[in-house]
């Protein structure tokens, strides 16, 4: 009689996603911020404008969510364009 093989349950836990947050800044033009979003994230003009307006009116916008390494890379790129960007854990 064949033995029943019970395979152990493997729980795969993906890392917590991280948000790239852009904060409102006092000196950059709105058109500039839109173009930076298009350039860094490859967003369409409409999507980039939505995020820019969220930054402008609400003070901050989550512009990207994903792995920590990628998020760090994006924050670094945004800092290169002198935008105020931070990382935070997604809820």
């Amino acid at each position, binding site marked *: 009689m064949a033995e029943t093989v019970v395979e152990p349950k493997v729980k795969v836990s993906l890392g917590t996603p991280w948000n790239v947050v852009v904060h409102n800044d*006092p000196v950059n*033009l709105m058109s500039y911020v839109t173009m930076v979003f*298009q*350039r860094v994230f490859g967003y369409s003009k409409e999507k980039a404008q939505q995020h820019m307006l969220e930054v402008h009116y609400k003070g901050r916008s989550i512009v990207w969510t994903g792995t920590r390494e990628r998020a760090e890379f994006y924050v670094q790129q945004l800092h290169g364009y*002198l935008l105020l960007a931070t990382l935070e854990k997604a809820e």
Partner: protein
Amino acid sequence: MRAISWQVEGSVGDSWRKWLEALFEPVLLPHLWRVLDLSARQSAREIIVLDAELDRSMKPWPRKRSIDAGGLLLQQCTPRGERLMARLQEAIQAGVARGHFATLYGVRCAAFSIPIRAAIHGYLLQELVIGAPNETGQVQLLEEAVESVNEFLRISSNGLNEGLRFHG
């Protein structure tokens, strides 16, 4: 495509270099330097005079674009109790100042304690990204401009007048 005070005509690189030589290095760079310096001392009257000088130094189309872009900056939030910005806004409304982008940008950078080098690089980035958003060689073009900024700031660190003489 038109940026704040330059536009691409033919090659992006050639247009950028032409703008650097014709407007940025002799006019905008010393202007930003002086506005940042005067803002730190809350010298509204001198900044208004500088704004009028800048207005006279610009050709018609960059002048209009520069004033329009300055108007957009005026719509952004200002720290409560920031008197210099308020005085400039009054001067613009009274027609005494035009409110060029470089002037208001310098005043806002000072109001938010943005260091001079970062402020000037931020200005260049805005001109470059708005004027040539799809240009792949933006980094190289920026580096070309940064060389003259570094040289100007190095000389200016010995005194504003010397820096102005270098480019003037």
